[in-house]
């Protein structure tokens, strides 16, 4: 029996957002594409599950880079251009910050946000707005430069703020504004979405995060993130992409330094001119390349020289009361005992107690998402992989319950309601859950930490030299744009663009 064509232009490993974005873009250019996904549905972590008859969002808090229908940002525009017609709902607020001495709900829009910060910390409007506007200019430069690279003098001329801040950490730049600590605290909550303390986090990344989320707001798909993933997959198939589920790729086949196909766990050997891997470079270079000696030492040095970023731990619940009866007032709450991000980042190395939690109640952005009389409520922290690496299979269940309990207790105290009395369904998602369903290296969802030593600007500069095996590209959180569902789409498109550019170059020869 023959299940595959003799040859594909491109084989994509992984049918999550990055892989599907790459497939869409390649199919749009008329290439023949095969997507191999290990799970039995698309989306990777952008998915949902059904418990007790109720569909539950698995991971998505808020999707960035979408934008209003008539003014799309890059991800929203890409979906529109590809005919991926997601029903987007705008998340009502940026976040509610529950920090030492502060209970403030902040809304998107640079001026709105600055005014609301000023409401809580009077006299800060001008400075906060100046920070946000600087972020916005850097953000616009990053977007433009990622499409139209230019020479350094040109860059300095047209993108001075980007150039001047590139060499500095978030802390260093924020310090220059002389803002009171409370105002700084209110600017900090999103840090967890990139997961590095401010002393290490490049200001460039902070800018993108703030300008995108605060400037334009965030979105969620009406039928949960599975709607987005499935619509991408359906559109890709309609464009001729072959997607095969439950196919685990074991090996990437390489000859003379060039990828030419893959072998699946089932034993199928499939040939393609290019391979795009959503599997981490760590997995690829240490386990998947065949023959193993086709991996140059520089590739190993590169993965060893980088720090894995965060993984995820979520307690996802369906509660047996409507949100308002439980005192849940905001779609998203960021709660911390301190807003010292460097300290918090340090704590994420362990197994708790986790003092910085993000909570989502989907019903407040998506009414009717659960049956009447119930609501969904998730509590998430994003630990580093370090602590979880030490947990054995026998300890795992105990540790997972202990951590979940601490998080539930913390939020029960905050809400003044014992959540344990209202749990209709509960799913505890751990780093191991991530590893099980997606195969991500050490359950890491955020790729490599954004640090001053692994800066996005540096990643862009050295990307070319890090393509160690010809015709092998990578897509996913481990690539240049880093983590998050919006960047996943961008990373996938970048991989597809690399393939298309190489095809054009080789055709020209």
């Amino acid at each position: 029996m023959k299940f595959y064509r003799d040859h594909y232009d491109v084989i994509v490993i992984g049918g999550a957002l990055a892989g599907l974005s790459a497939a869409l873009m390649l199919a749009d250019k008329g290439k023949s594409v095969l997507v191999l996904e290990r799970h039995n549905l698309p989306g990777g972590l952008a998915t949902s599950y059904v418990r007790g008859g109720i569909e539950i969002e698995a991971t998505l808090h808020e999707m960035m880079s979408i934008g209003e229908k008539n003014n799309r940002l890059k991800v929203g525009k890409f979906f529109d251009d590809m005919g991926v017609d997601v029903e987007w709902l705008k998340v009502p607020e940026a976040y509610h910050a529950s920090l030492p001495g502060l209970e403030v709900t902040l809304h998107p829009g640079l001026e709105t946000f600055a005014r609301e910060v000023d409401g809580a910390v009077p006299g800060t409007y001008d400075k906060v707005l100046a920070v946000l506007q600087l972020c916005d200019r850097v953000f616009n430069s990053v977007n433009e430069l990622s499409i139209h690279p230019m020479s350094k003098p040109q860059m300095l001329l047209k993108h001075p703020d980007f150039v001047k801040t590139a060499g500095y950490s978030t802390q260093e730049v924020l310090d220059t504004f002389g803002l009171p600590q409370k105002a700084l605290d209110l600017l900090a909550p999103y840090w967890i979405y990139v997961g590095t303390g401010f002393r290490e986090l490049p200001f460039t990344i902070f800018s993108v995060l703030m300008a995108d989320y605060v400037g334009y707001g965030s979105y969620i798909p009406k039928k949960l993130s599975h709607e987005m993933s499935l619509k991408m997959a359906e559109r890709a198939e309609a464009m001729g992409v072959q997607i095969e589920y439950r196919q685990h790729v074991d090996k990437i086949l390489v000859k003379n330094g060039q990828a030419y196909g893959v072998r699946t766990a089932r034993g199928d050997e499939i040939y393609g001119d290019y391979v795009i891997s959503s599997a981490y470079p760590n997995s690829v270079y240490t386990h998947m390349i065949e023959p193993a000696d086709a991996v140059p030492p520089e590739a190993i040095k590169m993965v060893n020289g980088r720090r894995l970023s965060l993984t995820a731990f979520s307690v996802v619940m369906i509660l047996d009361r409507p949100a308002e009866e439980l005192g849940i007032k905001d779609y998203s709450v960021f709660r911390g005992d301190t807003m010292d991000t460097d300290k918090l980042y340090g704590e994420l190395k362990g197994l708790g107690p986790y003092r910085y939690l993000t909570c989502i109640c989907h019903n407040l952005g998506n009414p009717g998402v659960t049956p009447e009389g119930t609501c969904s409520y998730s509590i998430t922290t994003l630990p580093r992989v370090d602590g979880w690496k030490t947990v054995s299979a026998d300890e795992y269940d105990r540790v997972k319950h202990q951590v979940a309990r601490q998080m539930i207790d913390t939020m029960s105290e905050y809400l003044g309601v014992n959540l344990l009395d209202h749990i209709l369904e509960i799913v505890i998602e751990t780093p191991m859950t991530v590893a099980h369903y997606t195969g991500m290296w050490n359950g890491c969802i955020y790729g490599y930490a954004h640090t001053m030593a692994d800066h996005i600007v540096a990643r862009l500069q050295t990307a070319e030299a890090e393509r160690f095996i010809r015709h092998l590209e990578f897509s996913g959180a481990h690539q240049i744009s880093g983590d998050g569902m919006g960047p996943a789409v961008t990373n996938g498109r970048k991989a597809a663009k690399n393939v298309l550019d190489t095809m054009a170059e080789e055709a020209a020869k």
Partner: protein
Amino acid sequence: MKVKGFLKDVGGASRVTKARLAAFAQASSTPVRTDPIGDVAREWHPGKLDMVVTEIRAASKTAKTVRFEKVGGGKLPPFYAGQFMVVDFPMGDSLISRPYSISSAPWQARQEKGFVEITVRRSRGDGFICDHINDNVKVGDTFRCLIGCGQFYYEPLRDARHVVALAGGVGITPFAAMAREVAHGTLDMDLTILYGSVASDDITLRDELAALEGEHVHIVHVLSGDEPDWQGERGFLTAELIRKYSAPDTTYFICGPQVMYRFLREELKKLDIPRRRVRFEVFGQAKDITVFPGYPQECRDKTYQLTVRRGIHEDVIPARATESLVVALERAGIRIETGCRSGECGFCRTKVLSGSVYVCPENDGRRAADKDFGYVHACAAYPTSDVVIKIPIE
């Protein structure tokens, strides 16, 4: 905005690039292959395992317990008491899968020579795999098994400490696992099993359960058959009986035949129990799909043409209207992965490319977007026209 000196620094890009290259230059060139978090995930979920039958014993006069160990021995994956395992049975050219609640305890699987057991009752002529196990399976036979599936287990953060299990017939099996785990001290809750049977001389696992009774495990037999000498509880698992054994805060777990589910749904309503305190095991494959609301009766005697795409390969097979797509595939020797066979787990998620199907309303565990795009769980979908489907390559 007052621009501080360093904001005029234009060398930042070069500086961070140098820092990055320096970090790589200093890094080791020895591959780090360890993925401990992935290793734990694989220990819990190793996929299908090759298992060998090492013991078969009577569980009653009509039921047998079959013990499986890993081929070559060793620990089995952890699971939760109450979960099921999927066993693949080779039948001629086909491979037919069935889910069975594991009746042994998780701690027994985690021993050096770990094992899992299922307890299977002879059918009344409608369960050929159950009869096959009772009649033909022998020590030394090997099967591929997936251990630890399903959501029917005690969750301490959700459930009350006092648990009343409502078991009917061979529905006792998940509770046997729970009772063993509680008795062993590795599951912390109080378990009272109300166990409905027809005849006192045919109670599945009766002796083994009796040996587990103690401070935290109570077994209450409830007999529906007419036996004058019976000293214990009689009749069905009524609201009144359930109330008698309940604590003020109790979680109810229910596992048994479909007819019992319908009965107990009504009985439990009378007790005004919060929704979160009631947990039913999956419904099981519909015995007769034509009795469900909205089933198109005009289809019932028809056999349709089912076109099955796997990759670029295509087969055309017959499919009876009253049998699920999964059964049609298994009859034709086409492999499809199944789990709960109750429409819940989604292992058999299948795209309907054209044609129409009827989805059993008791067993519709699909995602909303899946419904919009014609996905079905093939174990709970019945053809009502010629149908074209796409399934994964196994």
